[in-house]
């Protein structure tokens, strides 16, 4: 009997191993382990054995049954996996075909530059101030120490609407307006971006409409060294940690002293290249200490308060940053231009 069982096991295992499909395997299971199968038969013959052999033989029969069952299961898993593999293999797709596009637009590069600068100064405690683009002569000029007939008005040929109303030529009137609102009490810390207009014929480097972004800090004890420190920080954030700045004396009616601010060239690190015209420096900002007349006109005591102001052109910064060669691109809005600033 024992022999018979072992033979059955051997036969079954061999068949199981050979089985090529789940169906075949199922048949083998029924054949050996079914109610009418040989093992059941063997077990039925147990009655004929002596009582002392029965448990041993019963144990053996169960072991054989378990061994076969185990074999079947293992084989079944294997076959199932193979079947699945075959099915999945037939489902293979071409992963190089293009994905379903998700629409995406982006900000205009000028907005990207303005927002970057806004955020930088917001981080330093500035808020964003805005004002009208159509301005009075008073705020655009007079409150900024540019009385009528001042020769410096020639620097800015303006679009007048009436004798006293014009398209603002600079964002500085926002400074005058904001200071007035503070009624002589500091601190005033604002950054003011916006569109400005001048009578220039549009070409690669001129535009009758362009943007400016200006900053103003008025408080007790604001020093020119603070201007230098603030702008150094600005230059490093915007153009890289190794940047340095250089102040050159200049003239603006609304600041005294006035300076032009150069940033060490971010392309060549000051060695001299085509971007910086071989000087190692790029002129980026105009700045200075707020002129006492401007403070006084806006209601601040210029003996008590001092302030610094600075201004720059987002077009110029964008042109430098991205290597854009023609200012008119900003206003033509060619989609092939706009879409290049996804990461900006």
């Amino acid at each position, binding site marked *: 009997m024992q022999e018979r069982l072992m033979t059955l096991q051997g036969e079954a295992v061999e068949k199981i191993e050979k089985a090529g499909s789940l169906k075949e395997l199922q048949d083998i299971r029924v054949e050996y382990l079914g109610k009418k199968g040989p093992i059941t038969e063997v077990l039925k013959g147990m009655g004929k054995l002596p009582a002392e052999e029965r448990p041993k033989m019963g144990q053996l029969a169960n072991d054989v049954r378990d061994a076969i069952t185990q074999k079947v299961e293992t084989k079944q898993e294997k076959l199932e996996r193979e079947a699945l593999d075959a099915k999945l293999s037939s489902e293979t797709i071409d992963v190089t075909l293009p994905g379903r596009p998700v629409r995406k637009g982006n900000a205009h590069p000028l907005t990207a530059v303005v927002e970057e600068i806004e955020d930088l100064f917001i981080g330093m405690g500035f*808020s964003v101030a805005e004002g009208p683009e159509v301005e009075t002569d008073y705020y655009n000029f007079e409150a900024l120490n540019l009385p009528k007939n001042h020769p*410096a008005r020639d620097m800015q040929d303006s679009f007048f609407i009436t004798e006293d109303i014009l398209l603002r030529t600079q964002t500085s009137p926002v400074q005058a307006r904001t200071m007035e609102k503070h009624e002589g009490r500091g601190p005033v810390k604002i950054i003011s971006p916006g569109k400005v207009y001048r009578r220039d014929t549009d070409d690669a480097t001129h535009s*009758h*409409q362009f943007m400016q972004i200006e900053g103003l800090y008025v408080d007790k004890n604001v020093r020119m060294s603070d201007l230098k420190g603030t702008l150094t920080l600005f230059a490093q954030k915007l153009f890289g940690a190794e940047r340095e700045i250089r102040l050159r004396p200049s*003239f603006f009616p609304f600041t005294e002293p006035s300076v032009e601010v150069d940033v060490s060239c971010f392309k060549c690190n000051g060695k001299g290249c085509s971007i910086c015209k071989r000087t190692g420096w790029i002129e980026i900002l105009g700045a200075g200490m707020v002129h006492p007349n401007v403070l006084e006109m806006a209601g601040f005591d210029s003996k008590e308060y001092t302030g610094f102001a600075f201004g720059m052109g987002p077009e110029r910064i964008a042109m430098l940053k991205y290597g854009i060669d023609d200012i008119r691109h900003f206003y033509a809005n060619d*989609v092939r231009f706009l879409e290049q600033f996804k990461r900006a």
Partner: protein
Amino acid sequence: MLVSYNWLKEYVDLEGVTPDELADRITKSGIEVEGVESLNKGISGVVVGHVEACEQHPNADKLNVCKVNIGEDEPVQIICGAPNVAAGQKVAVAKVGAVLPGDFKIKKAKLRGEASHGMICSLEELGVDAKMVPKEFADGIYVLQEDAEVGSDALAALNLDDHILELGLTPNRADCLNMVGVAYEVSAVLEKQLNLPKPTLSETTESASDFISVNIDDLEDNPYYGAKVIRNIQVGPSPEWMQNRLIAAGIRPINNVVDITNYVLLEYGQPLHAFDYDRFGSKEILVRRAKDGEEIVTLDDEKRKLEAHHLVITNGSEPVAVAGVMGGADSEVSDTTTTVLLEAAYFNPSLVRQASKDLGLRSESSTRFEKGIDRNRVYEAANRAAQLLEELAGGEVLEGMVEEGPRYVDHYNVTVSGTRANKVLGTSIQTEDIHKIFKRLDFAYEVEEDVFNVEVPTRRPDITLEEDLIEEIGRIYGYDRIPTTLPEGSTTPGELNPAQKKRRLVRRYLQDSGLYQAITYSLTTEEKANRYHGLATEDQPAYVGVSMPMSEERAVLRRTILPQLLEVVQYNQNRQINDVAIFEVGSTYMTEESKLKNLPNEHQKLAGAFTGLWHSHPWQQEKKPVDFYVVKGVLDGLFEKLGLNDRIVYQQAKREGFHPGRTAILLLDGKQIGIVGQLHPADQKEWDIKETYLFELELDELFSADVPPVVYNALPRYPSISRDIALILDQDVQAGEVQAGIQAAGGDLLKQVSIFDLYEGEHMDEGKKSVAYSLTYYNPEKTLTDEDVEKVHHKVIDYVKDQFNATMRG
């Protein structure tokens, strides 16, 4: 201002300072040098030659065979084609092996059989601008003056070894519009001794006042007028050194009298005018306002009509010059002039500015008067010119200056304390260093502790306040020596205001939805300003136009952004970019006033334009062209972002420029805040673009709407029940209205209504359509039963049947 390095060297010791170094130093301390130009445009091997013989070429009418001594053992033979070449001349000779501008190498040559060993040069051939060449040498070679040394380098004789510094002067530094002023600045910057010219005059015993009198109507208009009379003048060319300096400064030499006035203009910054005394027409100078309509023929032979706000110099009856702007042709100095009446005056800058603007005449003189000349240098400049007329034009200077108005005005003083200067600059400059700085600037001062009482020289009218002196201290001390600090004041929260935050939110949302941000021009044409302002209805506020537009294209401020966006669509479609989805946030401008007295209303608007495909994924056969609902979907999302979606209503509308059946106005709480629709096909054709959809919203209105804060709604705890209904409706019944009706009838239990199907056409009766709605019922308190729902649902169905003449389908 063009500054000759060689000339400047006479006034300031520039030993060891190259032109480039000088430029760098000046730029760093305040005056930007925009360029340094070498007058030597690549010349070598050009020497002074003496033409010993000059004969006509045997085989060529227009050529001469010259024997020229160039300081070598033998004279050389040079063939020269210039009509003015002659024996006895000193000329500039390019020897064999010489190089002229443009890398032009001089070689031995044979011209019609005669050997030529070099070239006699014209100024143009030596790189001088043709416009600067004196007229007598314009068509030929340049003839050097007698004293030129044969064989020496001609560049020195012609001042072509000079360098020109171009100063970019800001309006406050008019003091550097002359060599003396530049010398003061350079001496301060380099800390070098100044060495200025001191005019010395030998005058005759005859008094100028016997020849001329000076009267000024109003000393406000003309605070000082001085006249000198110089007799026995011989008009002729001015000396070479003077011509060279004028050429270097960009002024063409004319004759000694004119050249001397120009030279003193460059040297002292004082505009002068020379009248021909014999043609002046009287012995009286009267400075007065012009009469309206009075005429004068100016030096350029133009007849000019004057107005009462113009200041003129007259001979008592007729105007002979427009003050500070230009002289008259009648009294112009000519070759036959023998007596010169020299004017040196100070005119009110704004009068000169106005006249020069009105007459369209800008000159070296008017520019200087406008920007402010040194009031106390007028007298000295007149003497300097008289001295030069005596020395270089053989003149006899009559005794005295005939003048009206004070010759000099008092200095004024400005006080600065070292403490304050250091406080403003953030420096710790020692008092003794401030002493040094004022000495370098040649400013006189008195000092008490660290308070300096500075006597501001009249050449520096830009200095009127303590801050102006602080700037002087700072720039001479050196801005590179100012430390780098951060403000120490009170801290402030930096943030965007709510509208700014919302604007960024809107921009981000639209970008992330697939639109590109555009920025267009605010100025447009009158015609475009009058179109697509679909928002403004009957009471049309006027547009705002600029008073002197540069072109019709940029004449009027926009009232709507839409035409600009259509231009962008057109621009792109002209370049085969057919799919465009863009938006712009920007200002528009309107006024209620017919004549603008107050600032116009500036409204921030948000506009968008869509055309072509909204979505395209070709290999999976997906293609979605832009339509009304694409745009509406984008807007719906936007309103949701702003928390306004429940308060916005789309109302069918007809507006000029828009498709009459595919346009809606948008209402926020019943107030019109925007428009969305298809561009009218007729307009589309006119623009020559493809089907385009537009929207424009009033951002101010959207941003100022009160929005409650976000409050969390508890998640559903009980299951909801859905019921679908398909309604057959009349074509003109709007699905949205029915939806709103269903919502109202469903009450609190009806949590959501959505449209899931629309059917029109076949199997439908004429004029009917089928719209299917899905209704979701929910009770937050308990699990709904079918009975609960049925009760409400029947009410809903009865309501829509009754209210919208609807029938249930299927």
